[in-house]
């Protein structure tokens, strides 16, 4: 009993950086806290057989910088446990990773040919799950501070980028100019179609408007309108209150509209009502179009 109680703390201590060893002395009920973590992990993944000590050593390695009791509370325990088990190469862990994590990656990769998706997944399996003789599998680097899926998805987009730049597969992200112009054909085709020159004028105005925005404004519009990050998330990323970020997004959007209006108005051919209707179109399609233009 005392043997086992000591064992988790001992394992924890063994892997904790020397600089933080002293912290442990002041922590009360550490063994119980660690046992609680193990219990939580086992409940989440009952099918995985990994000793509590091994997991606790992994926790020690990734312990967030906050004081120990808080740091333990910040961890995504189940995700970390799964990553740790995968790093040991346990077969069932690998299967669980495949099913619960990897399968959820492709929907976030955007429109890619299925062959490319397969390739991305294959590279990910190699990179994340296969250890080398000199280094453990990369998945052991997962810190447990954010969701495992988010971490994996970030890696996936990186790999997509790599694949795109190697083999000259640049076209993955490139839009041919016609496609940009086509953007402004209206949504319902029994209706009016913009004339070709009007469409080009719009495209040009949007292009110049975006170029005139600050980098921060463009980033805010892109993150929110194109990538769909919520105001709460932006608030976290920007370290600002939600209302403040929201105001900035709205301001950026209005500024873009003004810039576009100015660019369009400078073209002699467009009269008042036509301009208004074009702007209405821009407004209503803003999110859609920004995404096409900014990528």
């Amino acid at each position, binding site marked *: 009993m005392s043997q086992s109680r000591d064992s988790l703390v001992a394992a924890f201590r063994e892997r904790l950086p020397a600089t933080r060893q002293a912290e442990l002395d002041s922590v009360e009920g550490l063994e119980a806290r660690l046992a609680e973590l193990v219990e939580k992990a086992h409940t989440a993944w009952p099918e995985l057989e990994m000793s509590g000590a091994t997991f606790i050593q992994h926790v020690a390695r990734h312990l*967030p*910088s906050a004081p120990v009791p808080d740091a333990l509370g910040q961890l995504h325990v189940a995700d970390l446990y799964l990553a740790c088990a995968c790093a040991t190469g346990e077969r069932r862990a690998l299967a669980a990773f495949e099913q619960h994590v990897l399968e959820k990656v492709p*929907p*976030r*990769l*955007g*429109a890619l040919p299925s062959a490319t998706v397969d390739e991305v997944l294959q590279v990910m399996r190699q990179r994340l799950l296969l250890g080398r003789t000199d280094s453990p599998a990369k998945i052991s680097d997962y*810190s447990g*501070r*954010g*969701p495992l*899926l*988010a*971490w994996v*998805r*970030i890696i*996936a*987009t*990186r790999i997509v*980028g790599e694949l795109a730049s190697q083999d000259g597969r640049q076209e993955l992200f490139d839009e041919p100019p*016609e496609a940009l112009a086509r953007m402004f*054909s*209206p*949504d*319902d*085709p*029994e*209706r*009016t*179609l913009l*004339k*070709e020159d009007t469409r080009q004028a719009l495209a040009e105005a949007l292009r110049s408007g975006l170029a005139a925005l600050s*980098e921060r404004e*463009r*980033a805010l519009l*892109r*993150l*929110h309108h*194109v*990538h*769909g*990050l*919520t105001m709460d*998330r932006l608030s*976290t*990323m920007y*370290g600002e209150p*939600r*209302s403040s970020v*929201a*105001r900035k*997004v*709205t301001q950026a959007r209005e500024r873009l509209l003004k810039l576009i209006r100015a660019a369009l108005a400078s073209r002699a051919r467009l009269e008042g009502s036509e301009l208004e*209707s074009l702007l*209405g179109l821009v*407004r*209503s399609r803003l*999110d859609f179009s920004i*995404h096409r233009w*900014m990528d």
Partner: protein
Amino acid sequence: MGCPDETTLSDFLVGALSEERRASVLTHVEGCPSCQRALAAAEDSPRLEVPWTDPPVMLQRGALLARYVVLEPIGVGAMGVVYAAYDPELDRQVALKLLRPEGRHMEELRMRLLREAQSLARLSHPNVVAVHDVGVCGDGIFLALELVEGTTLADWVKSPRPWPEVLRIFLDAGRGLAAAHTAGLVHRDFKPANVLVGKDGRVRVTDFGLARPSNRGGPPVEAPVAVPPAPEGGADALLTRTGALLGTPAYMAPEQLMGGSADALSDQFSFCVALHEALYGLRPFEGVTPEALGEAALAGRVRPPPRDSRVPAWLRAVVLRGLSPKPEDRFPSMEVLLAALTRHPVRRVGLWATAVAFACLVGLVVGYGGAHRREVRCEQEAENLARVWGPAQRERVHQAFLATGKAYATSAWETLSAELDAHAGQWRALRTEACLAAGGSAPEAAWQTQACLDARLWQLAAITEVLENADAQTVQNAQQMISSLEGLEGCRDAPVLSTRPQPLEALRPKVDAARRKLAEARARMEAGRHADGIVLTTALLKDIASIDYRPLEAEVLLLHGHLHGMAGKLTEAEGILYRALWAAEASRDDETVARAWILLIWVVGDQLARVGEADRLAQHARAAVERLGRDRFPGIATDLHLRLGGVWLVEGRLERADEEFTEGLALSRKAYGQESLRTSYFVSGLGRVRSRQLRSAEALALYRKAQAQREAIWGPDHPGLALNLSNIAAELMSLGRREEAISVWRRSLALLEASRAADHPSLAAPLNNLGSVLRVLGRLDEAREYLTRAVAIFEHSKGTDHPNTAIALSGVGMVAYDSQHFEEALSYHRQAVERLQRALGADTSRAAPALMYMGMAQQRLGRNAEARRNLQRSVQLWEMENGPESATVGFALRPLAHLELATNTPKQAQAHCERALKLDEKAQGSESPDVALDLACIAEAQLALGSVDPAVPLLERALRVHVVASRDPLDEGWATFLLGKALAVRGGPGDAQRATERVEAARACMTKLGVRATQELKEVQGWLARQSEAPSLARHEVTP
């Protein structure tokens, strides 16, 4: 500086970085689209569950969607793409709108869209864009819409217009909206961009709320259209959450903007916003965000009219009422609003259409693929065939055939698979050719051909499905089943004519299912299971009542009628076939029209033998076939020849039958080849003509040829061989080859009895024939049994007055005659004559044989005057029908001669017999049984005249013929007796001895024939008795 690693970004997202680290990462991220994308991928926001980066998959020019050929995209919408497309069947352009609902409630949404689109399709109003067709296409649905050339109201109002002109256009649009409301449809997104002003001046409302989720009933789909405004960034939330266009809030009623439900009153509000905008050049409410707009609308803050506006106050009042914030304050309906708008007469305005810019066909032409890519695609499209007749189906059918264990299964499979392969090959070749041609300079015709070919694939599919479940009877009749596969070349040569009517796409699954059942029913018919088939078609008629698709009704009725005809229910069949005809005409199904006329010819002209009507039916049928094209539909054209030939035979018009069969034979050889089943029908048809012309040797050769053709296709055990075997036997009989004939008949009867019920109509003919030959052999009881059975079957299946029934009846009369029951015989023959005359008219030559038999019976009864009248009448009828030079006349000349002999006018007898001999020698050659009869007849007359010397060689020659071509042993016995008698009279060296031998042989022969030879045997025995009384014969004694 490189991008932060995944752990840093992940920590950045959850705020786990130190403040300075966060700031530096943020700075990097703001300038790095790749990191932004990575962060977006990591983020679990629901908005991204929609694959927003998925561009709609664009269809290439020339791609097929249902029967439509894509021309070019004319726009991309929130839920799909619209293409200009071509409808090859109706040869017109349409706008093809593809809707691809997405998200969690996709299936539900899809069904709702389909229902709405279908109700829209039923809504026919001049001011609503017509929906021609609605169908399912993968996960989505498609609408084929009227393609309107013109502009939208949004463009139209851009130029300033006088208010009366504006009002007139809006009144039309309002009528369209009102019609939709009446039909229970709500538009939900009425605005100027959704109103088309056609080149033809017609105003049409389009884009009914199909692409938008309904707020009424059912769980919301995706994010709701409008959400209650959030405290901050409400408009943003609205825009971002849907990720797609919302429609234009500017036209929405406040209740819609607040997320409430849309109804007819919200449409009225939208209508008035648009009308306000068109009248004043301004929208009624200020504001760009939905909240601002909604707030202004709810507060009733309508912009004041511009100072220079000429819009009358009454009109403004009407519009303002329509813009009331509370729905209950608006007009109760669009009709009431329209009435208010028309209360004041609108001055007619001049032509305005000239000012309209036509923009609807402006579109993007997606690049053509290279020639090679088209080739590959064409091959792929042609591979649709593999779903119907690919290696898998082929093997399944083969196994099904083998599993029946029937002797003829292997040969049937070989022929069938070869024909199906050929058909499939032809389809593939034509389809690929058309697909390649569709890339050429004049693609319309090629598209029509493709559509036509694709529509014909179901026929093959329906047949292969039945074949895959083949039982013994299906295997037996596989040949007939595939005979309906035709018209492929017609698709190439005249696709519009050859294209079968097609159901709405949404109906297609039901129609296809019904057609598969129809193919099953057809299989029953081909298998001779007519009652089973009728059960199926009867049920099918009930099933399809709910489908309401007339071409299908025509197809089912056609088979229903055919089955009734085959089952001998001829009156019903006639009625049903007329119904099929009407349904086919109503649905412009030329093929079924032609088939119905042809079957009517068969039922009315052949089976019911209503002679006068056949000619008219024939004209109708010929016209229908001409319309289809003989060469394009050789199957139908040959059917017509076959049926008509049959009718002309029934009517005794042999020349016409000859022409009909000859013409059909040539067409069939050309279209199906020498060795096809169809060709064999014409060969045997000609055989029937020759048989009726008494050119037995020719008839036999033709029947034998047909037999060889059929055995090559069917193998030797097929019941289908029975009929032709029976014909062969009949000709063998005419040629006096009695024993052969009997064995062939027995084989024929056995084949039929193995597969059919005891009273099946097809048994009648062999029973009749076998009965006749047994009668000739003196086996009268057996003969009577067979013949009576045949009469019963004929009466039951063809009716009492049908020629076949009458002739069978006459056969029974001949048994009675041979049984020496002359009164009974007379009565049978008299009935036969009466029935024939009722069916075919008083002067029908078909009654000649029965009249002749009446005469013979009457002679036996000693009523010579009556006998003479009937015999002369039969000669006359035959002369009328076939000419005085016809061999058939000889039939009646011989009994007439016997009458002359009996009435002591041997000179006339000799003349009759000599004429008969001349005719028979000419028609049948010098060695036919009839010639032998004629020779004996002449000799008998000469003996009666006392000139013995010429009689002997005549009789010797007659007997030689009898030996090689023995038809009736009684005739042979009688000639033998006559020779004996003649020799005895001549009294030359050895004559006495030979005379005794002959007469003894004759007696033996006649004794074997029993009752039948009673009369003749009596004469022989009387003669013998006289000889024994006066053993030394006077040299020139003449026996009376």
